[in-house]
């Protein structure tokens, strides 16, 4: 029991005892006790009313000084109250600072609850996506940002994927959306303005396409004259070699340009469509026949176990096979072996080109599909390689919902595997041999 309560109790008992004593002196102990009790009760009621009034009006003068239990009670109360309001003020300042900083963020941020309902958002979200912080509270975010891709992203629960969508506020602007989980069941939707990035990448694509296109016509003229010169019997023999050299380089340049054009076309195009399924096995056989058979190339085996066909663009699939195969030939010694296989199963289909060549250092594997990337700078330039082949393969595969998986061991060989998703694979009953063209 605290000091104050003890004092209060003792005071109370003493007061009652005094009342009883006075009553006893006069011969009426009970009356004395009753009178003392009534006085004490009145006193406490008055204090209680005062306390209530002080709470109500906020005028605490009556209780400011003194040591009685009421004064103690009051000062305790006032202390707690002041502490509470101090905390509240601190929190409010903090909240304001947080809000100020989130408003200063260049990216839009929207806090969502488990049902994708908007809890709050910052100013950039308003600027970029037209969300209203107060009005849209409790609204599902995909009710306002109705891009089908974003709706799918919100419901998929995928926290790594991003979706690009057109800004609903500013025409021609693009937003990159990302969902990040946070707290208990809450999500943060981040919106980033990528208009500039999109514009730059379009500019780059257009530049490459236009530059290649513009370079092609002068090159055609040059090659034309070179062809004429090469066939001319009258030119001095000293010029024969330079002309032949120039002709080769002009042809190479033409090839680079046409591959660059092909790449920029692939980059701009959407998913590949097809009218009729591509016979991959037939393409493999044709390509092997066309590329093989030379004295100094490695032996080529075909392991086409599957007759499955592929939904896609036949010419592009052929390009994939040709590029992978010619790479394999280039890096495999004549006594090596190259295996091309085509297998299908419930998880899709795989086109694999494996060689027993020199292999690729693991650190270079992620960079293989970069344009003009070469593992060995000094080596392959003279052998007709340009450095665009795998970049083209990668883009074609992306258009066919497929991915390129490269595994390699130095000195043992490399495996280039193209994995196609099951949606693209068409399994047909095997055709009788007689009808097979």
């Amino acid at each position, binding site marked *: 029991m605290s000091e104050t309560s003890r004092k209060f109790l003792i005071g109370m008992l003493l007061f009652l005892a005094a009342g009883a004593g006075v009553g006893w002196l006069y011969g009426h102990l009970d009356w004395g006790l009753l009178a003392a009790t009534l006085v004490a009760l009145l006193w406490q009621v008055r204090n209680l009313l005062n306390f209530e009034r002080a709470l109500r009006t906020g005028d605490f003068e009556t209780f400011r000084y003194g040591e009685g239990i009421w004064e103690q009670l009051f000062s305790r109360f006032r202390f707690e109250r002041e502490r509470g309001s101090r905390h509240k003020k601190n929190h409010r300042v903090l909240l304001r600072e947080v809000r100020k900083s989130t408003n200063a963020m260049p990216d839009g941020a929207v806090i969502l609850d488990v049902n994708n309902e908007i809890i709050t958002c910052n100013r950039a979200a308003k600027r970029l996506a037209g969300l209203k912080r107060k009005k849209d509270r*409790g609204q599902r975010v*995909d*009710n*306002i940002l*109705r891009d*089908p891709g974003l*709706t799918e992203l919100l419901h998929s629960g995928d926290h790594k994927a991003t979706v690009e969508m057109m800004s609903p506020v500013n025409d021609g602007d693009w937003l990159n959306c990302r969902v990040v989980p946070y707290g208990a069941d809450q999500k943060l939707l981040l919106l980033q303005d990528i208009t500039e990035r999109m514009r730059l990448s379009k500019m780059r694509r257009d530049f490459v396409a236009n530059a290649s296109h513009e370079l092609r016509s002068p090159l055609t003229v040059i090659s034309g004259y070179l062809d004429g010169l090469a066939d001319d019997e009258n030119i001095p023999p000293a010029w024969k070699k330079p002309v032949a050299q120039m002709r080769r380089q002009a042809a190479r340049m033409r090839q680079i340009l046409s591959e660059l054009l092909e790449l920029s076309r692939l980059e701009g195009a959407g998913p590949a469509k097809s009218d009729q399924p591509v016979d991959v096995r037939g393409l493999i056989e044709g390509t092997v026949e066309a590329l093989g058979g030379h004295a100094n190339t490695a032996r080529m085996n075909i392991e086409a176990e599957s007759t499955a066909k592929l939904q896609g663009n036949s010419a592009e699939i052929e390009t994939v096979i040709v590029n992978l195969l010619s790479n394999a030939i280039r890096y495999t010694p004549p006594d090596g072996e190259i295996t091309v296989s085509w297998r299908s199963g419930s998880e899709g289909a795989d086109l694999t080109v494996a060689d027993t060549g020199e292999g690729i250092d693991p650190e270079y594997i992620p960079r293989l599909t970069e344009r003009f990337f070469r593992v060995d700078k000094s080596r392959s330039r003279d052998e007709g390689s340009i450095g665009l082949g795998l970049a083209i393969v990668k883009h074609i595969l992306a258009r066919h919902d497929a991915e390129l998986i490269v595994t390699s061991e130095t000195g043992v060989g490399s495996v280039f595997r193209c994995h196609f998703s099951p949606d693209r694979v068409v399994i047909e009953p095997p055709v009788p041999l007689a009808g097979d063209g």
Partner: protein
Amino acid sequence: MDIADLNEHISRRYNQDIEDLRGSVLSMGGLVESQLSQAVAAIVTGDSELGLQVARDDYKVNNLEVNIDEECGRIIATRAPAASDLRLIVAIIKTITDLERIGDEAEKIGFLASKLAAMDRPSDSYREIKTLGNHVAHMLRDAMNAFARLDVDAALETVKQDELVDEEYEVIVRQCITFMMEDPRSIKRVMNVTWAARALERIGDHAKNICEYVIYMVQGRDVRHTLQSEHPDTAPD
């Protein structure tokens, strides 16, 4: 009616049903919006593949319409909605019909885009179709936003935009007539442009209808055929 009013049913499951229904109408709206913007982009950029893609994807819109229709029927049958809920359901049933029609118009524009891509392109690369298309896309977006936010003022604002769309359509038609008179060889191409403009104008009308359903849903009054243009006296404030 306010968003909060939609969420005060005793049954939580009912709230959830209503919210899901609203959500699916709005995602159907989102799909239609993207179909429209892609169809217009296909005309403007002369991308025949994109145009055909839009035409092929119209079945998605149709499927959504059927699903939402079914869900509305189910809610009416099992929950017997009254007052604002009933108005919401009625408005949704009408809205999805208009959205489906907008989807059909977008499909048509997609087809026209693939045809136009194969023909000569004018030097302004269909700028007027782009302007009209953007305008209509804004209208549709504002209509769907008004639906999501139950915002009567925005709905009225959007209804007014329809007049501008009609005017723009008028201008395009006149321009097309001039082209055809100047050069009869261009008639085939210009007719396609006219049809595309016509489809866009129709989309504007459907967007306007959706706004009217929003007003009905929120305030319970039917403003069809009574707005400013027809009866200036009854203009809502």
